């Protein structure tokens, strides 16, 4: 289900004194099964962009084409079908929970798409397993009596239950503590590995994206500033710092060492690889 975006522009409130250009001439492609990191500050346009990918917003100009269908003219049932294939998890998704039990909330999506009761059962069970929630333990609990982290997982399961081919997550780790962040990111990684689903992870945290993404899109003031593999992106450390995005701390360490003359490669962003490379260079001497 390839995604193609061509010269996409979006202007909020075009005829009023509050007009603002959120997106300007944005173009990119996403292939099946990719893990894309979308990074940028508040106001860079990333939240607006993802709402175009499932038709919640229509372009002011330009095109969004999903699996060959131009979204600009899609309405009604056709639009609903697009949303079945492109799942969107908003920020703080636990704020959208409303049902009496976890089971019923997760089944909201499948029910809207007219699935049979047995299909719904299956979907809910599968979705809960994917987010690491024990089916029997949680299915009858009220979503309002479980912890914040668990509520978030219920919300994500609610989107997974519609079986999307593309999963977009807007800052899924926002507001979580380090343990919670790690758990969610690990689960998303597993999901990507096991079901070949296309993932678009929106974040403003370089460290999160560095470890996991195949490709990174960097947005700045409504346009794409950089696009490429993590290695390519982190090579542009100056540009990133200038945009206030920074680079992973590990990469910073390695860059500083490189400045001092150590021959280290540019694309280091995990602690393990940094350790191995540095030790190789300095270990023989026993001390720096």
């Amino acid at each position: 289900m390839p995604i193609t975006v061509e010269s996409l522009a979006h202007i909020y409130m075009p005829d009023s004194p509050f007009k603002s250009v959120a997106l300007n001439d944005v173009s990119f492609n996403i292939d099946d099964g990719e893990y894309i990191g979308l990074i940028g500050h508040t106001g860079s346009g990333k939240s607006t962009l993802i709402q175009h990918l499932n038709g919640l917003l229509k372009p002011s100009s330009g095109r969004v084409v999903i699996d060959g269908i131009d979204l600009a003219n899609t309405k009604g049932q056709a639009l609903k079908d697009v949303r079945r294939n492109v799942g969107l998890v908003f920020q703080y998704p636990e704020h959208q929970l409303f049902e009496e039990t976890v089971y019923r909330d997760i089944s909201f999506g499948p029910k809207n798409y007219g699935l049979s009761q047995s299909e719904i059962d299956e979907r809910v069970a599968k979705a809960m397993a994917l987010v690491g929630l024990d089916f029997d333990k949680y299915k009858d609990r009220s979503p309002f009596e479980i912890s914040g982290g668990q509520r978030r997982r219920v919300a994500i399961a609610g989107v997974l239950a519609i079986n999307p081919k593309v999963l977009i997550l807007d800052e899924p780790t926002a507001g979580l503590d380090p343990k919670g962040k790690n758990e969610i990111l690990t689960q998303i990684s597993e999901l990507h590995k096991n079901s070949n689903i296309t993932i678009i992870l929106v974040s403003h945290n370089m460290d999160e994206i560095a470890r996991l993404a195949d490709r990174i899109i960097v947005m700045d003031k409504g346009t794409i500033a950089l696009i490429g593999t993590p290695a390519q992106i982190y090579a542009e450390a100056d540009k990133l710092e200038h945009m206030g995005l920074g680079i992973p701390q590990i990469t910073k360490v390695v860059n500083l060492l490189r400045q001092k003359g150590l021959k280290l490669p540019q694309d280091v962003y995990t602690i393990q690889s940094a350790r191995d490379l540095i030790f190789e260079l300095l270990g023989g001497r026993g001390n720096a």
Partner: protein
Amino acid sequence: MESLIEFQNVFFEYVNHAAERIIALDGISFNISQGEFVAVIGHNGSGKSTLAKLINALLKPSEGVVRVKGIDTQDSSRLWDIRRTAGMVFQNPDNQMVSTMVEEDVAFGPENLGVEPKVIRLRVNQALETVGMRDYARHAPHFLSGGQKQRVAIAGILAMKPEIIVLDEPTAMLDPIGRQEVLSTIKRLNKEEKITVVYITHFMEEAVEADRVLVMENGKIVIEGTPRQVFSKVDELKNMSLDVPQATELAHELRIAGLNIPQGILTAEELAGVLCP
């Protein structure tokens, strides 16, 4: 130095909606002196938020004593003195603002204290100046960024002339720029205005800026010390599912691999300096 905040063997228990008794604080004791910048870290459920709310008497201890500037927080006749002395900034930037205009919101605190209108005006101007939001005085809060809203919240506390500011995860809902704004504002207030700061966070790169760090787990303080002392205990912290600054972890890994690297590395610059003097 006399202690500004004292916790003596404090316990806090409550009953949750499933009718279970939860022990949020399990006998903690510590002191904070005037002018200190203390960071409290721990994962969700460790008791750090409860600790914050006990300082300004939003919560009262089930057992033990909490004293602010010598006043027992259970003394209901001195409640407003305590809250004037220890101001609090919360996590959600939106849910702290009461007014449709920034300067009116900052005036809310002093108005509650019955301060004279002319003096309120002076305090509001000064507070907004201190946090760098003077130009936004007549703006509506709705259009501000998260970082700006939190700075207005801090101004609102400053206008009450507190001696202590307690911040309960003030940057959890902000982007990196907002986090920077808030942290640098707080650091400045601590260094220049000598305001005592109690800063609850789970961002380790913020905790390294403090004078002292308290690590909480299961309602107890398990590690205490300067940032260098605390963060060198990499394995202990990792076992509690807490993070350490990446440079610290890398230093730790290199040390294990055999390189001779001193304890207490906190930043990329320090590590680079040690590896390549």
